[in-house]
């Protein structure tokens, strides 16, 4: 038996990996005495990162733009047959991978722009060895996380799936905690370690139950269902931790520095997208053996929305609001995945695209305002509509999309698509909580939106400069345009 690599198809995985290795070598070189005497441009690190990401994007784009059902790599036979390969992508998976790459590129670009913004006259000055160590290692971690997410999305066997998922999550968490090495929250790392162990155990049980680690279950004996189901549940728990669904979201709450408006928190989106890919793959695989994952995943989703939603209703810190928002949206993302057995993965991916865009929009606006005001309190947004109307409108569009309310029609459509499969089952004990979850979600974001209209205090600490730095403004406007386009022509997404 031979294994055909199909390196071009695998390019989205090895391109960022190669870039990460290059960065590690570069960083290591600067630690030597000889390396410390070499003048290394500060833009070299982000340039290497960008080359890796662009290379991966170039390899992913054909899968997004065409309707190829399956393109495989690491294949034992025909690369167009899912059961013959250890890695493969269709248009849905390629779209998810492109989202991962876009978010990673955004983080890299912001790291460059923010550096230039802090020292406008010194952009070309060689970086000091210690700062290069930090920048290089963080960039390498970002690239590892990106590669892991891409691999997890395209994995066609559970062992690769779980390994890649952990490769996506752990570096992401390390990026967030490296800002404050003196106070690394141990619970974060312990949680992730446990999740990795649990998901690995799940993969083992899956392999035992299916007789093979491949996700293709068309030849599986139905009598081996118990091991398969337990294994699936354990892998799903690992994915739930990665996506930040409540009650497994505590690690992401603790990992993000409370007082640091760093765009690096978007790395959590990368790990969440990896988890989305894992859940989609599991749902599609289970559908082949007639197992409907709708109910357990729906229950998990509603618990996440309810738990995080009620917590968010009392939250006054913007960073924690963002984290709670992520947990709420994680629940809404899991719902359409639960229906993948009965509908297409494209529907779930369309929804994920909308939520990721809106989350990026809200995150950049919030981080921009925190950076400008120095306050992460929700009350810093009080009266924002009167003081900084553009920032308020941009934030409002994002909040309405996440709430699933008009005029952000794309958010409404996306939310309706998550509920529609439940309406079709006529299981009212699920439908009614789902309607309640819709109202709770709307209440969380509307509470935030109402603050924008309230009159601000006399001494609100707002300077005369723009509320949003220009990089945040550009990204936010691009996101709004994308959401508006999705509202007018939803066929682009679904």
């Amino acid at each position, binding site marked *: 038996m031979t294994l055909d690599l199909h390196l071009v198809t695998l390019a989205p995985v090895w391109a960022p990996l190669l870039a990460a290795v290059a960065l590690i070598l570069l960083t290591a070189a600067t630690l030597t005495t000889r390396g410390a005497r070499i003048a290394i441009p500060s833009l070299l690190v982000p340039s290497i990162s960008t080359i890796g990401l662009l290379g991966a994007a170039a390899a992913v784009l054909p899968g997004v733009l065409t309707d190829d059902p399956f393109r495989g790599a690491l294949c034992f036979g025909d690369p167009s047959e899912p059961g013959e390969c250890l890695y493969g992508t269709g248009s849905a998976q390629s779209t998810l991978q492109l989202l991962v790459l876009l978010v990673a590129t955004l983080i890299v670009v912001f790291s460059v722009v923010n550096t230039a913004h802090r020292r406008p006259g010194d952009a070309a000055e060689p970086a000091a060895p210690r700062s290069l160590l930090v920048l290089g290692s963080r960039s390498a971690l970002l690239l590892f996380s990106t590669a892991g997410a891409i691999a997890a999305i395209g994995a066609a066997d559970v062992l690769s799936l779980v390994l890649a998922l952990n490769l996506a999550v752990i570096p992401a968490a390390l990026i967030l905690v490296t800002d404050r090495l003196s106070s690394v929250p141990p619970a974060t790392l312990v949680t992730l370690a446990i999740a990795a162990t649990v998901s690995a155990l799940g993969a083992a049980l899956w392999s035992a139950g299916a007789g093979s680690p491949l996700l293709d279950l068309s030849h599986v004996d139905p009598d081996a269902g118990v091991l398969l189901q337990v294994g699936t549940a354990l892998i799903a728990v690992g994915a739930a931790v990665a996506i930040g669904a409540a009650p497994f979201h505590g690690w992401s709450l603790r990992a993000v520095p409370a007082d640091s408006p760093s765009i690096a928190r978007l790395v959590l989106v990368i790990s969440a997208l990896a988890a989305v890919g894992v859940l989609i793959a599991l749902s599609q695989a289970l559908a082949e053996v007639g197992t409907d994952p709708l109910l357990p995943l729906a229950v998990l989703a509603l618990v996440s929305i309810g738990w995080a939603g009620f917590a968010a209703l009392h939250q006054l810190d913007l960073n924690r609001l963002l984290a709670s928002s992520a947990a709420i949206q994680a629940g809404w993302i899991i719902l359409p995945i639960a229906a993948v057995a009965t509908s297409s993965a494209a*529907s779930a991916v369309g929804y994920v695209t909308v939520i990721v865009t809106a989350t990026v929009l809200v995150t950049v606006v919030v981080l921009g305002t925190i950076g400008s005001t120095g306050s992460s309190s929700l009350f810093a947004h009080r009266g924002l509509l009167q003081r900084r109307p553009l920032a308020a409108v941009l934030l409002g569009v994002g909040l309405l999309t996440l709430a699933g309310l*008009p005029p952000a029609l794309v958010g409404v459509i996306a939310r309706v698509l998550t509920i*529609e499969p439940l309406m079709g089952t006529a299981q009212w004990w699920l439908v009614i909580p789902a309607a309640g979850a819709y*109202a709770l979600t709307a209440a969380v974001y509307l509470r935030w939106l109402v603050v924008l209209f309230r009159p601000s205090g006399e001494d609100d600490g707002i300077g005369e400069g723009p509320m949003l730095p220009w990089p945040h403004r550009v990204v936010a406007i691009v996101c709004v345009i994308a959401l508006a386009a999705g509202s007018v022509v939803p066929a682009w997404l679904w």
Partner: protein
Amino acid sequence: MDLPEPLWIILAVTLPFLCGVGLVVTDLTRRGALRNGVARGVACAASLLTGGALAVAVISDAEVDVEWIAALNVRFHLGIDDVSVPLVFTAAAAVFVACAIGRPVRQSRFPAAYHGLILIIGALGLTALLARDAVLLALALQAVVVALWFLARAASVEPAPDSTRFLLLAVAGSTLVLGGVLTLSGSAGTGDLDAWASPGVIGTGNQTTVAALILVGLATLIPLWPLHTWAPAVHAHASAGSSVLIAGVLATAAVHAVIRLVVAPLPHGLATVAPVLAAAAAIGVVWAGLAALVERDLARIVGWISIAHLSLIMLAISSGSATGLQVAILGTVAHAAVVVLLVVLVGDLREQWGSTDLATARAALREAAPRLGFAFVAAVAAATAVPGLAGFWTQVGSISAAWSPGPDRTEGWFRLFAVLAVVGLVVLGAVAARLMRDVWSGDRTRPEVVDLRVRGPHTMALLVPTVGVLLLVVVAIGVYPVAILDFTADAVDAIVGVLP
């Protein structure tokens, strides 16, 4: 050059929307670039052009039907029939009035954005009224609610804590409507309202549950007792333009949705829940009258009068007869005309008085501002069952429809509800008398009140022609309701023909 017919109906919804977005973006990005007068002129022109496009669309029987959200089987399907024509023009007229009366004087910021929001709400309301796809109708209705909240919140003349209650109630209600619509769409295999109205397309199994779901949702938007609590407060705190849109666009679209989503496609379901609906409506008339009788705030009284009128409309719909349906359509137009007139006048009084508290001694309009007083008296009379004015046919017609309900209704109960509604009308008469005493009659001439003359620098310079036209409409409907009744007769018969 002849333009394609669908273009006119597309123009009717996109023109106000794009103009509105343009005004909002202009104000947000270049603050102060457009003065209030220019913004108001642009908005009025856009609303007039919209009315023109609608007229051509009606004459040419324009329709547009394209696929929109394939994943939900939703089509962007707009069209007009005889039921929606009077309601569509009512909404369009309300938008023009909201633009013409301008923003509150104390609202000095973002004048263009204010008028832009009005146009956007108008566009969304027209979309809801023209929609021939149920999901499109429900989405447009929800969009109207959220946009109205923005306007009411951002342009409130006083701190408005109750606007959040309005938003939550209305969003919850519109979500229920959306849920019911999706359920029906799934079972029927289509969201086309014309198909839904055909007998046999929607089975009888789920009709009662879905009808109840949709009616509860729409009851928050109309509003109907006991889900009415947001209305008086919002009317009190919001600007006059916001109140005009609530009465002329939101209420009109909600009543229209009842006809399209419940009356036509769910006859069995409506027959089952009709007694409950009628009871809520009858109680609503009495409740609103009693609340208005003891209310201190004139703007809140207008809100209660609106609730009473809308309750009568719902009583007429619940009767299940052709008369009831025709009265409901006529009553919706009359309600918009009467309440909008009241809102315009009370809004002007608020600008001059500084508040609408009736406990404060004011100049009697009869002495200080006789023309304004005359308009006020006519508006209050129209709000009660005075023959020859618009409100008469709503009130008498609703009671008549309830007294002689359709064949599938329990006559005894409906006659009881009719009696209850009469009690409510008597209370409304007492409210009218109270308003005449507190606002119009008396000898006080201080503090000074500016009468209905052409006003130079006053922001409501278009007040006189606006009030004049509204008075004419109120009288015209009161004197010649046959124009609307005959126009809608065939379409109503077609709907009622499938009722059990």
